[in-house]
Each structure stands twice: as structure tokens, then as C-alpha cells.
């Protein structure tokens, strides 16, 4: 695994994917092997953060008291242009299925989370 590719799950701004060098399968929910073919020969890459909204909701009631102050917050599933799907925060209004989005990052709870906004918004 490549430590130099920044990844929000370790607190550094970036969206990382792993591509199987044997079969080409792209994974986002990372394992040390390819779930399609079992190969352990994976290349970690930086995703562009560009994608399309597949599903979107607004959480009105947060799952814990520590997160309540953030509610309501938008939550989206985004199809990344590299061929994986990821969960991200989004503005609670103005994001619709099919919208092209860009990924930034923001602090939430104890760490950093992906935050997508429609392309062309400041």
C-alpha cells in the first residue's frame, strides 16, 4: 500500500482507490487483496473526486448527541469517474441525483469526511 497517497480515512485530504494489477478491479472499501480475483498485487491511486450523484438524503436526526449540532446534513452516494461508489457529505439543499460533483473535505465529528458539491458552485 502506498503511504504517499493521501486518504481522508487517515486524516489527510484525498480520496484513494486501489486498482488490481491482475484483473483491473477498482475497490474503495479497502482490503489487502482484490475481492474479485484474490490477487494481492494492488496499485493505490488518487481519485480525481469528480463523480455523479447516485443517491442523496438529508439526515435530520444525527446518530449521536455529539453530531446533533451538525444536523441537518446532506449525505450522498457518488459514482466516481474511476468506477467506484463512495459515501460523502453534501449540502442539505441543491444536490440532485445525476448531478456532476467535485469532492472537497471538511471536519465532522472526530475527523475529516469527503464533502461533494455540484460542479460550478464556489
Amino acid at each position, binding site marked *: 500500500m502506498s503511504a504517499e497517497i493521501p486518504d481522508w480515512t487517515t486524516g489527510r485530504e484525498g480520496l484513494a482507490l486501489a486498482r488490481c494489477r491482475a484483473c483491473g478491479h477498482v475497490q474503495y472499501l479497502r482490503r489487502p487483496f482484490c475481492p474479485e480475483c484474490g490477487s494481492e498485487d494492488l496499485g493505490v491511486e488518487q481519485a480525481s473526486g469528480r463523480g455523479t450523484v447516485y443517491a442523496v*438524503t438529508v439526515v435530520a436526526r444525527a446518530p449521536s448527541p455529539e453530531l446533533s449540532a451538525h444536523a441537518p446534513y446532506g449525505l450522498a452516494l457518488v459514482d466516481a469517474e474511476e468506477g467506484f461508489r463512495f*459515501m460523502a457529505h453534501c449540502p442539505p439543499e441543491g444536490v440532485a441525483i445525476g448531478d456532476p460533483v467535485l469532492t472537497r473535505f471538511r471536519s465532522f465529528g472526530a475527523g475529516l469526511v469527503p464533502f461533494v458539491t455540484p460542479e460550478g458552485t464556489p
Partner: protein
Amino acid sequence: MSRITGIGLTPFGRLAGASTLDLMSRAATDALTDAGLERREIDGLITGYSTTHPHLMLSTVFAEHFGLRPAYAHAVQLGGATGFALVMLAHLLVEAGAARRILVVAGENRLSGQSRDAAIQTLAQVGHPTYEVPLGPTIPAYYGLVASRYAHEYGIDEIAELAVLMRANAARTPGAHLTEPITAAMVRDSKPIAAPLRLLDCCPVSDGGAAFVIERADPARPGPRIRGAAQAHTHQHVSAASSLTAFGARDSAGRALAQGGVALADIRYAAIYDSFTITLAILLEEIGLAPRGAAGRLAREGHFSPEGAMPLNTHGGLLSYGHCGVGGAMAHLAETVRQMRGEAGPRQVAEPPLALLHGDGGVLSSHVSLVLENGR
């Protein structure tokens, strides 16, 4: 072939002071009485899990507590699909000869045994610990994502009708958690929870318990027969689902029907998991009990009403009889058995010769289908 010879179902709702073991015991006592059996006649025990009583060995904790010494015992965990998975397993075990009479039991004081925040927090942990949970999703949020996609593809205005139907059914069911009548407008105007889902699209959190006795078919001991049972598991986390409009329900139900040599057209009663209105709509449509996008409309037209062509969850389902965890879906089966026996009181439908039951766990990730044949 296996038969269901005993059912036990507690009221669902706020049952203050009752623990997991109390609720399991009440349901088990009722199931044994219903089956006309003594404790010593039970040689197998399968339990679910309880979030208020987490334990590595809940089945033997219960066996000791209740006074059973089974030759076979363990617990099963499959989220909302657990109830029907327990029944499928008992069916397979008696068919295989591993046990003769199995007690299947679950119960949980999910409402009064913990704070509401604790319940929401525990349930939200079914998300991916690294890629989902840090974003603060909730169970309704996962289903809100699913519902947004459904709304995008088919339109979602009429699914409120499913909540209205479940409430009307619950009003005729003793022991139901929520019985105050509601209208589709009330559902659509209720408090936003996870867009497009609102409060009345969501099932309540309840206390309750349910139990069955499942045994090898014996002409001297009548009861509905399990004709088919099948599962399908396609993913765990919503982020890993290949589609949010097509899930494993069609595959699972199709194989359960084929196994029983039953056509969907022969089914006269449906017991379908309904944690949210969207869950029920998707499952009905995917199984083929409604065209895509039409479950809400069919409910409004009376198709799924007790007097309609396909009576559905006549006890009120999770949406209104209530949801106590594993026991929640088991109430669907208890009601199916009552309908088959002609014991459903004011909500009795024409005794169905064949019923289809379907449960799901996770975010429509795990599916279990059962085909039940009336065996009176």
C-alpha cells in the same frame, strides 16, 4: 417437510420492566402452550440476538433460564432477516433429523431497555466502520438513500399508502404498538427524518418477543407446513450495493417458490418485511407482487387490504404492530399462522392455502423467503 405447531407473540410497545429474557420466556411459554408441549419435549433451541442483552451464547443463557436442556442449540444473527433465518434453519434441521422439535425464540426490550440515542447509535453501527460510520449516517439515512433512488426512477408520492394500510391493520390487532389512524397526508406531513423519508415512513422501536415450535411433519400434529425456504445475500454496506433499485429479494423468493413447486400466482397471503415504507414497496415490487413503482398505488386501491386480492401483514407489520428487533418479523409469521388457522378475529381473511413470507436484513442486503402451506 416441517410444520409450525406452536406460536407465541407478546404485545409490542413499551413493556416497562421486562428484560430480554423475560420477553423471550413469555413468548416461549405461549408457543409451548399453543403446541401442547412440555419443556422436556423440546430437543432443539435456536435464538436470535438482542442489542440490550449482548452475549456470546444467548441460546444457552436462555436454555438455562427457561429450563431447557436441548440436544442442539445456538443463536443466529442476520439483522432484520434473522427471524425468518431462524425458521428456515429449524426447518432444515428437523428435515435433516438433527432435532425433532425445535423452539425458535427471540425477544428484546429495545424500547425501554436503553435510551433512544443508544438505540439509534447501536443500529447506525451496521454501517461500514471506516467509510460510512464517520459520516454520521443512521439506519433511516441508508434507507433514505435507497428511497431517493426509487423516487428518481419511479416516483414516491404514493408509498405513504403502505403506512396507512399498516396502521389500519394494527388498529384491529390486540397488542399492536401504534393504533391511532393515520392518513397519507399525515405521513407526507410528518417530521422529516432522512429525506425523502418522514417519521411515519419509519417503524417504531418496540419491546416484544415471539416464538415458534417447528417440528417434523406428523399427521397427528396439524400446523402450517414449510414448503420452501431460500436466501440471497448480495452485499453488506449500502456503499457496496451494486444497485439501490434491484436487490436479492427476487432471487430468494423465486427459489423458495420453485423449491415448493408453487407459482407466485397461487399465493393468497403476503407477509413482507416493512421496516420503512420504502422497504415494503421495494420488496413487494421486486418479488413481483406489484409492478415497479406501483406498490403504493395498489395499497391505495385496496389490493393489499384484508378484503383485497393479496392481504398483506394483516397484523400491522413492523410499521404499526411494531419492531422489537428479531421478534419483529416473527410477528409476520405468527399472524400468517393465525390467518391459516382461522384465528385472526376481526381481521380474518379467507384462510390462505399458501403464503409467501420475506424478510431482509442490513440495507436490503440479506434476504430470506419462506413459502407456507396451510396444514390444518
